[in-house]
């Protein structure tokens, strides 16, 4: 694959990842269908509000958590699920453009490489929430929404972009060595 092809693939991958990340943050990712075991009918009769199906996106779930005064956990999740992936994609976009123009990438991109492993943390958190709620008694169901797939695809694309960026860096280093020689 030529350097130009890799550059364009990286650009498109980052832009697509950004679009999917935006959708993934606000699209329905989790639908909680409460059940109350043998008492299901009674609970629905006496407290219909408890039987309502709730649908959350990543962002609305985090904001609900903050509203319910779980500020610390909420802010950590907000950073690692929303702010950090966006900044990481922005830094990678910066790096791709810099490398495309034969520039050095600088320490910011190195940091993005090192912190890349944290990008899976949000997926892990989602998985933990699902497992935790699936463990509730009364056959309460947690159904995953299409937002999860958007979000997960964005994470995979950002990993792919990271690989492409690394390849661009290697190409640039090889070019620099050839010029020096």
């Amino acid at each position, binding site marked *: 694959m030529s350097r130009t092809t890799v550059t364009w693939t990286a650009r498109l991958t980052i832009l697509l990842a950004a679009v999917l990340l935006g959708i993934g943050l606000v699209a329905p990712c989790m639908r909680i269908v409460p059940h109350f075991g043998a008492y*299901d*009918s009674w609970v629905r*009769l006496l407290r219909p509000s408890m039987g309502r199906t709730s649908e959350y996106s990543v962002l609305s779930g985090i904001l609900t958590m903050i509203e319910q005064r779980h500020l610390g956990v909420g802010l950590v999740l907000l950073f690692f699920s929303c702010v950090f992936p966006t900044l990481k994609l922005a830094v990678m976009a910066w790096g791709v453009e810099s490398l495309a123009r034969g520039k050095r990438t600088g320490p910011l991109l190195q940091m993005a490489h090192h912190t890349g492993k944290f990008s899976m943390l949000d997926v892990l958190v989602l998985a933990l929430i699902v497992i935790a709620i699936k463990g509730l008694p009364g056959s309460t169901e947690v159904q995953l929404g299409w937002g999860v797939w958007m979000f997960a695809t964005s994470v995979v694309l950002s990993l792919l972009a990271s690989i492409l960026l690394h390849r661009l860096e290697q190409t640039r280093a090889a070019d620099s060595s050839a010029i020096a020689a």
Partner: protein
Amino acid sequence: MSVTHSKAPAIMAAAVIGIVASIVGGVWWLRASPTTPAETIASTAPAAVLLDHDYYVFVRLVEFKPTKPNGARWDRGGDSGPDANAHISWRGNRIFKLPSRTDQLISTWDLFRVDIAKLITDGGKIDIESAINAPLVRVARGEAITIEVWDNDAMFSDVALNMSIPLADLREGRNDITPPASSGLARLQVILIDRQTPLPRRI
């Protein structure tokens, strides 16, 4: 040209942030309440009824229209509201009659009804099952219940609703049924409760 060339990485990075922010902001703005989770408020997502399963059919509420379908008053020669009466039929049998309600446009019933006089004559003991203000039906494919609601007048009774409801169309929990436009009812609320719910323990 060189200024544009040097600014390209920053523009690209800003574009990425802009894409994410505009999608999130746009969707958030489109929602009526930005900080409320997207709850499906209309849906109580009750479980579908199970075939060959026994359920209590509890008529919780009926609401009469202000006048009869032909525009006449409910009370002949007066201005009183309708006296609500309701029957439930199943498999060709009238299986339950709800206690009458007098001069009400909206009539409601509670799930439990205790006959104090009978309670005293029975020695102060009550079988909880017998206090349930609803009949039992068994859900089978293709079967229906018929709910008949009428205004009981001294001289004539006016049928406000005679509606057949397929059991398979009902859900466990609350069912808000819209009566036909030609009927005298504006609203009908029916609650289905699984018989296997351990009733005495719950009470």
